[in-house]
């Protein structure tokens, strides 16, 4: 079945709503507007205002209400348009959702799913271009998913809803138009395992979300140069699949981490540290990182492109860890 990432997410929501009467979608403009990224278009007509619930501009309010509804026995999918606006709900997410289970000595779990768009690349300037899923991955108590393929867009939501704890799903804005084939019987996928998207032997490109297509494109180019790059899609940023990270490094002995987030104190720093801790003697070259430039994302196309990881930058980083002579230079 030919589909898009956007439709795959919509199908996942529709399936969840049909499967479990406790599931409802709540967020800004999910109903009458049809969803800021058109993900929920048509669902209001299908399920009605009670279950496709337009919330006012009040992120702290409706995210907190999602927590309460989850405590009260519902299975809310809360949509916060973008990660940029989730900051208004940060207190509820970090101080409540992430801590209630622990603070209550295991008595109160929060089966809540929060979806939001993330990432830059659409020339919408600093306040609309954050990639802060890595930030959220810092918080114990949250699970952080970053579906990068149609299968994952379709399959992670149900698994997330079955999870007893708060799960945040980050959908990169550049992925919504991604097109491809999806089997008719595409079903739930695990949310605690990284996935190898391309096998390789010379270098590992470790990435997730919106950077996956760029890493795959870079791997394609490297193949033309005679370099076999493995591409590891993390899929879940917390908990990180350390085993998969170490396995790929043990196989290729060279690692390039691609993360749209800022380098300092980032997810890429964490991955690099885990490689150092777990596979230091397997490394034939220092770990390389391709990250977002440490600036608020600028509006003009050329500056925005320079601020975000690009295929060229990934190629350069890969070449820098390959032995001299492997891979054409320049």
């Amino acid at each position, binding site marked *: 079945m030919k589909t898009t990432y956007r439709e795959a997410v919509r199908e996942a929501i529709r399936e969840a709503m049909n499967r479990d009467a406790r599931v409802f979608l709540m967020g*800004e403009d999910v109903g009458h507007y049809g969803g800021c990224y058109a993900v929920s278009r048509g669902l209001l007509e299908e399920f009605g205002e009670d279950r496709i619930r*337009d919330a006012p501009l009040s992120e702290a309010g409706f995210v907190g209400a999602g927590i309460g509804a989850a405590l009260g026995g519902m299975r809310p999918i809360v949509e916060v348009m973008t990660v940029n606006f989730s900051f208004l709900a940060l207190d509820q997410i970090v101080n409540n959702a992430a801590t209630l289970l622990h603070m209550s000595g295991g008595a109160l779990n929060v089966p809540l799913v929060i979806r939001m768009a993330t990432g830059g690349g659409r020339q919408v300037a600093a*306040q609309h271009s954050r990639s802060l899923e890595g930030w959220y991955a810092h918080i114990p108590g949250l699970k952080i998913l970053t579906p990068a393929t149609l299968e994952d867009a379709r399959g992670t939501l149900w698994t997330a809803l079955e999870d007893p704890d708060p799960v945040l799903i980050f959908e990169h804005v550049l992925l919504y138009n991604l097109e491809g084939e999806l089997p008719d019987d595409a079903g739930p996928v695990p949310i605690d395992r990284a996935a190898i998207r391309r096998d390789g032997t010379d270098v590992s490109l470790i990435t997730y979300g919106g950077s996956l297509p760029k890493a795959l494109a870079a791997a394609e180019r490297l193949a033309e140069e005679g370099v076999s790059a493995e591409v590891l899609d993390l899929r879940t940023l917390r908990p990180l699949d350390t085993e998969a990270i170490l396995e790929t490094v043990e196989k290729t002995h060279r690692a390039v981490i691609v993360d749209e987030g800022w380098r300092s104190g980032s997810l890429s720093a964490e991955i690099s540290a885990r490689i150092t801790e777990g596979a230091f003697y397997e490394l034939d070259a220092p770990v390389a990182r391709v990250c977002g430039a440490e*600036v608020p994302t600028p509006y*003009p*196309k050329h500056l925005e492109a320079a601020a975000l990881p690009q295929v060229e930058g990934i190629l350069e980083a890969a070449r820098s860890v390959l032995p001299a002579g492997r891979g054409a230079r320049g």
Partner: protein
Amino acid sequence: MTFPPSPPLPEREHGLELLRSMILVRRFEEKCAELYGKEKIRGFLHLYIGEEAVAAGSVPILGPEDSLVATYREHGHALVRGVPPGRVMAEMYGKMEGCARGRGGSMHIFDAEARVFGGNAIVAGGLPVAVGLALAARMLGENRVTACYFGEGAAAEGAFHESMNLAALWDLPVLFCCENNLYAMGTALAISQSETDLALRAAGYRIPAWAVDGMDVLAVEDAMRRAVEAVRGGGGPHFLEFRTYRFRAHSMFDPELYRTKEEVARWKERDPIALFVERLRAADLIEEARAKEIEAEVVAEVEEAVRFAEAGSWEPVEELSRFVYSERPAAAAEGR
């Protein structure tokens, strides 16, 4: 809602000035829509078309010493405030000659000299900032008014309530200017706020508030004049709700599924520019020739802005990491 009768027409030249500024905003934005189609302007673009009377009638009441805070739908406020159209347009292009060197684009028009403090794209993000600007003025003994523009959607945010409370509690010289166009993206006021009378809500914070016909530039001007005088005179925070309507989609990505064409058409009958021209005509304050002249002047001004933007330059990539931290010594940053 019925409003008090519209104020009498002003003197001819002033009336024409109001008309000119509404037409400038309209033509500028129509040009922006066209340029968006040509991919000269990118990203999110939120047009103000239909709401021109609010900026045109209210912004000029502020003095040069006053401060203005606005949202991502701020081109009109910037233009009426006197930010040169060429600089606004260059910003839309992302060119270095833009008022933010092109780094902000359409949603982030700033002008330190004109005391335009945003261009904030986070809904209600500007309200606490406006409270702070007013606080600074109070503490420094400066008699400045801070006017803060925002949509009715912002009134549901926590930041709105916190700001209203602080402003009233500390008796600050801030004027909240709510541009109620009835929709926050696709969410109608009626389905998103329990009390849709926003002036009434302001009253809950003991802030004097009025609802104003935002399609009537003279009513806007009159209300703004009274409110600014009251704030400047030490009356503490005030609140104006301008009832208006946007004729276009929320942004260039909006399929407008949430309202009917008939509703939009009904509001267009109250087009603030057409209404005002009609009144000027009826009072013999404008002749066909003069109307054409104004139109031509404005069109030329917009064309000139486009030429300026086209001729502008792209910031070198080497400068990407500038302005993350200040390049000037702390002392120079004072005196804002």
